[in-house]
């Protein structure tokens, strides 16, 4: 953008500079041409003057012996004036061709002057005098004809020169007018495009800002903007995307809080009548007169009530998890404790089709983590039981830990089970999503919520054909917090 502005300003300056130079040159050339024309016209006057002097001398010859004669002195003065006019021609013309013509003319004038001189000096011989007068007059006539021709040619050339000068001035005038129109017009058009190139992206950004003002954080700038505006649009899109993510997380957290309250209220309201129903059924089951068939019905009803109890418990754990009771924990020890307890769970005891091996790869000297050990148990027990469910034909559960000093601890839980179909990958952490016939779909959702409650992140690797890997990463507190180590 800055480059473009500089380039634009430079182009304008260059345009005006070139235009200015052209205008100055045009004016100079016009003045010079006009000056030449004036000089040529002055020369023209001199030629006319020569012609007039010639004619005056001719007239003096004609009137010499009449009562209109002006006398010899006047004729001599006129002849001198003619001679001076002739000499004046040499002052202006300098080219060789013209000089040749002028010398011829000068010679003729000299002959004319000699003839006049003879006319003025012969006194006694009348016949000879008349002959000399005729001769002088003829020479004079020839001279007049010659000068007339020169004047005519010179006039024609002067007209041509005048026409060409006026034509050149007219062209310059047109170009000047064109520049006069092109300059402001060019400035207006370029200004329009420049302003448009600024106002258009600003308009796009303004529109985007309005969307954000109205809490439309999903809005992104689709238009292709240029230069700094493109950077601004990218930054804006990144900003809205980040706000949108945070906004959605906030909304999700708010929703979870509301659901938690609702679930807790609902669970509370259900528990009291459920306690009565369960108690009543237990009492009836123990009645003496009841048939075995009815007892079985009651027992299966009690079984269903227990399922409701367990569902409500899980729902409460997900929707309103208790606040973590933080203490300094060696996560390796927590994981070892859970693994030691795994044989107690039916999923790990089936062994009908194959056994589940548990392999561990714990990082030595794992930094202690400020966490709630009970919630950690819940997190990993959920994952281990899920892994066992995925390996009903046997397999290996691998649990590994690693860490980045002062940054994070990572636990990887992998199984060699049936894996997760790609179409389920997006949903596995959503509440009530389950592929198990009797699952509540709250296990992984609760795990994720508990991990996030500890500031951690859980991800699942999907690239494998078989097996699944969950990566759970917990941030390490930078400062050494107090508390007991479990």
């Amino acid at each position, binding site marked *: 953008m800055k480059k473009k502005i500089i380039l634009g300003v430079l182009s304008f300056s260059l345009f005006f500079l070139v235009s200015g130079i052209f205008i100055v040159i045009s004016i100079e050339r016009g003045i010079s041409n006009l000056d030449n024309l004036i000089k040529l016209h002055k020369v023209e006057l001199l030629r006319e003057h020569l012609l007039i002097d010639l004619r005056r001398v001719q007239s003096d010859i004609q009137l010499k012996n009449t009562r209109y004669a002006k006398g010899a002195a006047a004729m001599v003065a006129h002849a001198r004036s003619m001679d001076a006019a002739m000499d004046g021609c040499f002052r202006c013309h300098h080219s060789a061709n013209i000089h040749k013509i002028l010398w011829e003319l000068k010679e003729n004038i000299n002959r004319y002057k000699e003839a006049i001189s003879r006319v003025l000096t012969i006194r006694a011989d009348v016949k000879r005098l008349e002959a000399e007068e005729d001769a002088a007059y003829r020479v004079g006539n020839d001279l007049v004809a010659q000068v007339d021709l020169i004047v005519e040619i010179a006039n024609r050339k002067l007209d041509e020169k005048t026409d060409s000068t006026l034509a050149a001035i007219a062209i310059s005038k047109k170009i000047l007018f064109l520049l006069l129109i092109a300059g402001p017009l060019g400035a207006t058009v370029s200004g329009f495009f420049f302003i448009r190139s600024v106002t258009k992206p600003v308009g796009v950004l303004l529109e985007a800002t309005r969307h954000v003002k109205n809490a439309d954080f999903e809005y992104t700038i689709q238009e292709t903007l240029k230069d700094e505006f493109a950077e601004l649009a990218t930054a804006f899109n990144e900003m809205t995307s980040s706000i949108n993510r945070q906004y959605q997380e906030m909304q999700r957290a708010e929703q979870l809080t509301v659901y938690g309250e609702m679930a807790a209220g609902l669970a509370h309201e259900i528990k009291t*009548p459920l306690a009565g129903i369960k108690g009543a059924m*237990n009492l009836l089951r123990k009645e003496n007169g009841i048939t075995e068939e009815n007892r079985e019905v009651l027992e299966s009803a009690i079984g269903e009530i227990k399922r409701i109890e367990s569902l409500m418990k899980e729902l409460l754990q997900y929707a309103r998890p208790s606040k973590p009771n933080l203490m300094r924990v060696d996560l390796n020890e927590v994981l070892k404790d859970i693994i030691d307890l795994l044989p107690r769970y039916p999923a790990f005891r089936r062994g009908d089709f194959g056994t589940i091996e548990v392999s561990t790869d714990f990082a030595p000297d794992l930094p202690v983590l400020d966490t709630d050990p009970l919630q950690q148990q819940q997190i990993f027990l959920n994952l281990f039981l899920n892994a066992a469910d995925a390996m009903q034909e046997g397999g290996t559960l691998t649990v590994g830990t690693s860490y980045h000093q002062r940054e994070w601890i990572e636990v990887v839980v992998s199984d060699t089970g049936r894996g997760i179909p790609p179409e389920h990958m997006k949903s596995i952490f959503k509440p009530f999503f389950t592929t198990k016939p009797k699952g509540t779909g709250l296990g992984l959702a609760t795990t994720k919520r508990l991990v996030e409650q500890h500031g951690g992140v859980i991800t699942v690797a999907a690239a494998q054909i078989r097996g699944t890997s969950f990566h759970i990463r917990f941030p390490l507190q930078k400062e050494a917090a107090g508390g007991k180590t479990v």
Partner: protein
Amino acid sequence: MSGGRVLVVDDDALILTVLQKALKDKGYKVNTETGARDLLAKVRSWAPDVVLLDVNLPGKTGIEILEEIKEKGIDTEIVMLTADDTADTAIKAMKLGAVDYLTKPFDVDEVGHRHRQDH
């Protein structure tokens, strides 16, 4: 302590019925109350060995009633009934002098068991 007196306080009629029958079947003398009204007078006059006291009662909460009984120095043991499975309420009740607590939905057999444990 077969033959002991148990006062059950709950606003849920079915729970009252079930507990009354279960405890009577085990040989206890049982009396019931549905709320805080006249409860203290009943505790004084009937002198139960154990009061099964629901936490959520209309009017006064079970915790408030527990406090009153303990303040007035009435000699009876109190077991709280609660639908809230977070430990907070139970811990509070125990601190105030309750001997035990049962989380709803409890097992009827568990009620008798707790009594036998206590006595």
